[in-house]
């Protein structure tokens, strides 16, 4: 059975810090607004929607107690629809979509909303604790690194230079700025409003005009973790060929903390007819892999290889890629390993320029990819993200 993408929306992204404009807006409200926009924009008959699957990483405080169901209850859809929240780290938003696709494909559900939400300003990353962070069984026996250190290790291992990373970051901003100004990018991107209906944030607030010069003097962010806290040595223990880690990632070439939400409408053909909406795309294939936990962020490559195999496609069949810019090294490594030209990757900028609201990003990139395929009149797109603990996830879509 074919599974169709009927629409995919994302909120504007705010800074996920004390300076962020969306700090006063709880995540459940971000979710509610993007869901309501989906309903209103497509004039949906809400009783045909079976479930909302939301990715959300830090499920505590404002994001605890199954935020997906909370979003549904206060949205236009109402409590007759289900809601489930999942955590697959940075890939949560795409995992939600892939699960939704699987549900529809299996006949378990006919039409679902899938996406994610994260307010990093209100619910700080890692505030939910967990065995991964604290249990000596994992920390002593394993070779887990803080993600930033892992990014630096990848860069060191594959000889990526600071200049390359910075140059990539500047490109991300340039592309995002250009996209932000274009009318096309506003179609699927919604502003966040307050209780009065006044805009709290009208447009993405992290992206800025920046140059290599601006980034040049930023201090490395993960040297402390690597050198002082001893995580570099953990890397050496696993990769004996390394005897030094170049700490190259910094605030300017890593993804930004962000607040935002995104939702994608998936369903079978029949439901599209019932709702009287036209599909924007069709799901071709999905894949998930576990990968090296120490390097952690390299999963995008095996996930892409796997999803291509599923779809019986070659890398050259893909017109556009969304590769999450967790750190600048990730897309650079991806392009190098799979021989993908930069002109096909993250054409509207990525998480470095726009921010990475952890649980939402998978769906945000998905939404961006659908927009990009439509606006550039391309057909096949691939979205992939690396994830904590060493995982990769990927999905291929065909524009309709």
């Amino acid at each position: 059975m074919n599974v169709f993408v009927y629409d995919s929306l994302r909120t504007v992204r705010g800074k996920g810090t004390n300076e962020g404009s969306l700090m006063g807006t709880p995540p459940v409200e971000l979710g509610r607004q993007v869901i309501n926009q989906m309903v209103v924009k497509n004039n949906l008959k809400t009783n045909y929607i079976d479930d909302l699957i939301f990715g959300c990483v830090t499920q505590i405080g404002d994001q605890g107690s199954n935020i997906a169901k909370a979003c549904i209850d206060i949205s236009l859809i109402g409590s007759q629809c289900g809601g489930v929240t999942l955590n697959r780290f940075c890939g949560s938003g795409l995992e939600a979509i892939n699960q939704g696709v699987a549900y529809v494909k299996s006949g378990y559900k006919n039409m679902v909303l899938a996406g994610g939400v994260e307010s990093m300003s209100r619910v700080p990353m890692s505030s939910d604790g967990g065995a991964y962070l604290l249990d000596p069984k994992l920390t002593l026996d394993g070779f887990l690194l803080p993600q930033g250190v892992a990014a630096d290790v990848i860069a060191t291992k594959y000889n990526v230079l600071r200049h390359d990373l910075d140059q990539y970051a500047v490109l991300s901003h340039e592309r995002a700025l250009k996209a932000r100004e274009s009318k096309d990018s506003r179609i699927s991107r919604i502003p966040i409003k307050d209780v009065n209906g006044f805009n709290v944030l009208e447009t993405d607030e992290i992206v800025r005009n920046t140059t290599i010069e601006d980034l040049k003097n930023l201090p490395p962010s993960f040297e402390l973790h690597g050198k002082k806290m001893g995580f570099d040595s953990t890397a050496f223990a696993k990769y004996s060929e390394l005897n030094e880690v170049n700490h190259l990632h910094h605030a300017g070439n890593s993804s930004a903390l962000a607040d935002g939400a995104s939702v994608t409408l998936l369903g079978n053909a029949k439901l599209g007819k019932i709702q009287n909406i036209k599909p924007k795309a069709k799901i071709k294939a999905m894949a998930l892999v576990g990968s090296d936990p120490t390097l952690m962020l390299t999963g995008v490559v095996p996930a892409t290889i796997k999803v291509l195999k599923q779809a019986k496609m070659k890398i050259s069949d893909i017109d556009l890629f969304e590769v999450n810019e967790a750190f600048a090294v990730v897309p650079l490594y991806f392009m190098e390993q799979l021989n993908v030209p930069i002109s096909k990757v993250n054409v509207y900028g990525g998480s470095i320029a726009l921010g990475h609201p952890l649980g939402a990003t998978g769906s945000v990139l998905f939404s961006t990819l659908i927009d990009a395929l439509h606006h550039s009149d391309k057909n096949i797109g691939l979205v992939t993200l690396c994830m904590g603990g060493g995982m990769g996830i990927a999905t291929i879509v065909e524009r309709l």
Partner: protein
Amino acid sequence: MKIDLNQENAYFTCSYKENGIVSLSLDMKNQKTNLLIFEFMKLYFKVLHDLLSLEVVKGIIITSKRSDFIAGADIHEFLREQLDPQKFLSGILEMHRQFALLDHYKKPIISIIEGNCIGGGYEFALNTHYRIAVEGNYRIGLPETKLGLFPGAGGAIKTARMWGISKAIKFVVNGSLYPPKKAAEFGLVDALCETDIAAWILAEKWIVAGKPALHRWGDHNPIPGGNLRSVNGAQEFAIAVQWIKNKTKGKFPGINYYLKTLHDGLGLPVEKALEVEARYLVKTLQSDVAQNMINTLFFGVQEAKKNKYLDPKLGCNALEMLGVIGGGMMGTGIAANAALSGFKVLLSDQSEEATLNSLKVSKNKIQKILFNKGGSNEQIVKVQKLIQPLNDLNALEEVDLVIEAVPEDLKLKKDILDKITPHLNAQVILASNTSSIPINDIFKYVENKENVLGMHFFSPVDKMTLLEIVKGSETSTKTLSFACQFAHKMGKIPIVVQDSPGFFTSRVFGKYTQEAVLLYLEGIDPKRIENVALNSGWPIGPFAVLDEVSLKLVLDVLNNQKKVSISENKYKTFLTELMKQGRIGKKTGKGFYTYTPNGKSLWLKSIGTNDTSDEDIVKRLNYVVALDSYRCLVEGIVTDTRTADLASILGFGFPIHSGGVFRYIDAIGLKAFVSTCEGFLKHGAQWEVSSHLKSMSQNAFQFYDGSKEMWGRKTQNGLT
């Protein structure tokens, strides 16, 4: 540019003292009192920036030259400004920004509070670094929720940050005002001084000692009990929200948005939190509930207080002593209230022994009230001494006002009047405290009918602020003026109504309980009737309130009535039947409910399986009250819609959020209201709609246009 240390404007005067201290004295010359006005704020910021930037200025002490410190926000300005909500929001955010900028000077600003510091006035004081109250007879607090709002100029966030979640929520939701001593105990102010001089010395010391200019609610201070994200804080919040939900049934946007403010904002940096608060305040002001409540409970009360009969020349200025005849619940309550208001009272009951007993009851009431207000023992004794027993009726010759408050029995009342009138002086004002018996009947055989009237006090007397003054057929304007001023002195809000059985409040309220009984007789589960009434915003269900009043009293009133309709007869028969079964009311432990020390449980069992919707039950209970209020208006029993609205809320607890009976009809729309009433006609004649009302509904008449009353105005169709 040279900055003048001594300067004066329309709102305040600054003068340089010594030790680097500038005295800022609030004195809003063009206003009746000091109010929080945008124009004042603008000048305040400008002048303070100038002064604080000077090396020589070390700190500022704010006092007031007027009797109020700041009495609150200017409600008129508030309502005007909110017409442009976006601009209003910017205005509030700019105010917060300016206050924050003043803090950058790190120089202390201190408030010495020596008069009412209320609402926006207290929120203003919260922006000073130290608050000193001087002992006196005035109050401090945040009563905004009583007008359907919430403290949205910083008060919501700052109180929660200062006191922790549960304490702040109780304070804000109750909207209580505290005398200075209590305010200091509570933490509304940082210090209490006996005199203004002592306060000044304390403030001066604080500045000279170079104490840090930090706010108790600042980001540097952790929230007592933890913020909303802490385990304890989350629990406190959840408990408080549930408490409020039960209390308000979610009917008040102001309180709801206050809770949203705390949820969304507490735990954020103060600056961000204040933005959250401001956005919710703007939304609250746009709500019908807030506008209704402001119109009825602020403007309506203001109007009632300066009602047209009130003429100080004719008032009760000379009144020193009054007599209260009857020492039951009402008599003792009235006596205590009068003594607390500074009057001497002569109190009597059936016998000397009964009189002594009621004296004791009255004095206990005084003790309890004053104790709660933080009064001293000497004060309590002094007030208690104002009440004396009336054992010799001849003593009544000395008094200028006698209030008869014996039980609701026309014959008894007449007998008592016969007994006392020979002992009264010719000018005495003679009032009957009755909830329903026509004044003209009570005073039928009394001479000097221009001096008699009804004073319907509500129970409990010290808590209920309404006084329904009943004009007999010959009651003079002078007498009414006397009564209105007396009401003022008693701390009551007077409304003047025409004589008729049940007057306005009891007559209309009786329709509520009657309809509940009729619904029951139609086979609707009485539990549902009670629950639906409570959920629609009544403070008490119809059966529970019948128990409070006692079925006997209700029947007495019904038996006094000459004409009885079919519905009234059903009601009467049913109550009589219950009485026969020994179900009399709460006092005897048996009524609609059975009362035990552990609480009450509904005794009345359902007699049918009628599944009328909750929505229709609400309509039956509320519309019948509103419809009869309209009849009272037409009959002239109540003079105008705003008075009726006010009385319906203050007198018998019509759902507050509606703003009263006529605003309730407006919210439904007269057309829909009338057609629903007509549909209910099968339930009895109480649903009859006059042709006049019908034709008004066809013209979509509204009783109000914003704040303006439309009833009684000439309209195009000439209807009213």
